[in-house]
């Protein structure tokens, strides 16, 4: 019997954040190809603007990466000015990867089992 669960994205995906100027990018990749559609459905520019609106002042774009079952999240004006200008200890925005992995995503319970 299928049941809808809400789980942390970190349970099905891994991520790394990078920076260029005041723009952050976070590559997010699911461990199992079957979770790719969940990633694409749940992590959208609208969702990210809603969750992190007070930190991301610019546009958010999400580029699907079907060959590696990932998503490249690009957030403009998300680094309080960037590494040279920000007063944040994390001027590079490296902690963005785990903030995104901490988001909850909806998933079918029978989809949580590892692949055969």
């Amino acid at each position, binding site marked *: 019997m299928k049941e809808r669960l809400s789980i942390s994205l*970190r349970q099905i995906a*891994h*991520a*790394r954040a*990078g*920076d*260029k*100027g*005041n*723009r952050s*990018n976070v*590559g997010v*990749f699911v*461990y199992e190809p079957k979770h790719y559609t969940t990633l694409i459905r749940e992590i959208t520019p609208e969702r990210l603007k809603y*969750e*992190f609106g*007070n*930190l991301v002042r610019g546009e958010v774009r999400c*580029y699907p*990466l079907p*060959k*590696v079952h*990932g998503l*490249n999240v*690009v957030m403009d004006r998300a680094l309080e000015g*960037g*590494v*040279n*200008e920000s*007063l*944040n*200890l*994390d001027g590079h*925005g490296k*902690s*963005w990867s785990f*903030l995104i992995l*901490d988001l909850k995503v909806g998933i079918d319970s029978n989809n949580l089992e590892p692949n055969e």
Partner: protein
Amino acid sequence: MPNHTDILRIGTGAGFSSDRLDPAMELVEHGSLDAIIFECLGERTMAFAHRDMQLANGTGYNPLLAKRMSHLLPLCNRHNTCLITNMGAADPLAAAVRTSDIAANCQLGHLNIAAILGDNVTHLITPDLELIEPGCTVAEIQRPMIGANAYLGSQSITPALTRGADVVITGRVADPSLFLAPMQAHFGWGDHDWQQLADGTVAGHLMECAAQVTGGYFADPGFKEVEQLARVGFPIAEISCDGSVVITKLPTTGGRVDSLTVKEQLYYEVHDPSAYITPDVIADFSMIELNDQGDDRVRVCGAKGRERTETLKVTVAFDGGHLAEAEVSYAGPGALNRARLAGEIITQRLDEVHGSVDKRRIDLIGAASLHASAGKFSQNSTDIRLRCALRTSDYEEAANLLWEMEALLCCGPAGGAGYRGHITPSVLTYSALLERDRIKTTVEFI
């Protein structure tokens, strides 16, 4: 360039200015490398190099240059491995002369040491030049300019390699181009062979941060395990003449190379994956496929290349004044409230007593710092470190922040401890574009 086999083997010796030394030595000793690349230059490190060069007895190249060269030159000489690095920073010529002295001290005989010049474009920066990110002109920044450097491509280096350089020292070169140069020189890829240039750029991009593709910056206990991270090995790229690439590492080292570590690095600092722009090519990363061959080997293919842009990116650095940062800790019950009160006191004191107008930031480390303030806010922590930071062009203002934070020890909330404060010089960097044909590069052999 030495020609060991029809597979070109390139290693990474450093992925940033302060990277470890022993993995580079291990790689040259045991990696049968044709070339090893030390990528040691960020936007900030270049700006600081310009500033250091202007100081009395200051040098404009990487502070670790002498240490790295004295350990690596004898190894590279013995194993016939070419060393390419951007450790020249703001002064590649002086770095090459210093390297030549070190080679002489090591009694290595004559080495062909080349400096690549031409990336310093400070003289081309006019007040009306448009800066991309703030969207204003150089004049409108209203700060003293420190220096400006163009990102050079692979073709600034290849003439040195074809003339037999053993060591090549550059200033600002695009990171992947440092790796593409030995491929171009070895395989004879032309300046318009967009497909091969894209393949080589992917390899360079994967390699440029050293351990970040071999298990560094990856471990997340319970989710992503990495064996022997303390002894993580630096990567090796095996490149074939058709541009296909295998990323691997020495079997004796710690870390891991598999499709997970390679994926994370493949899109690191990439924006539109279909248009990764370097001085050499526009590479499409969007359809790259990874073939995990096991035993720490991943084959990478599927990049596409198209014609390069007519402009080169330039980083323009400005004096950013002083960055003042100070911290005090509060522990035990009520730590968060006491730290928060301390922060309010600092704000009031800076406003009312010192009339400070500079932009400042207050963090409650242990509850809300970094970018976590965007999300949940922990109320339970009993170990809080108050941090206050401000940036100012007035040294006195910077000193006032430190003074006020230290004064919390007697005048602030109960239980404050562990004050530390420091003032560091600050730089601001912005990007601009210059026409490619205005930037001329030269090779100087020492």
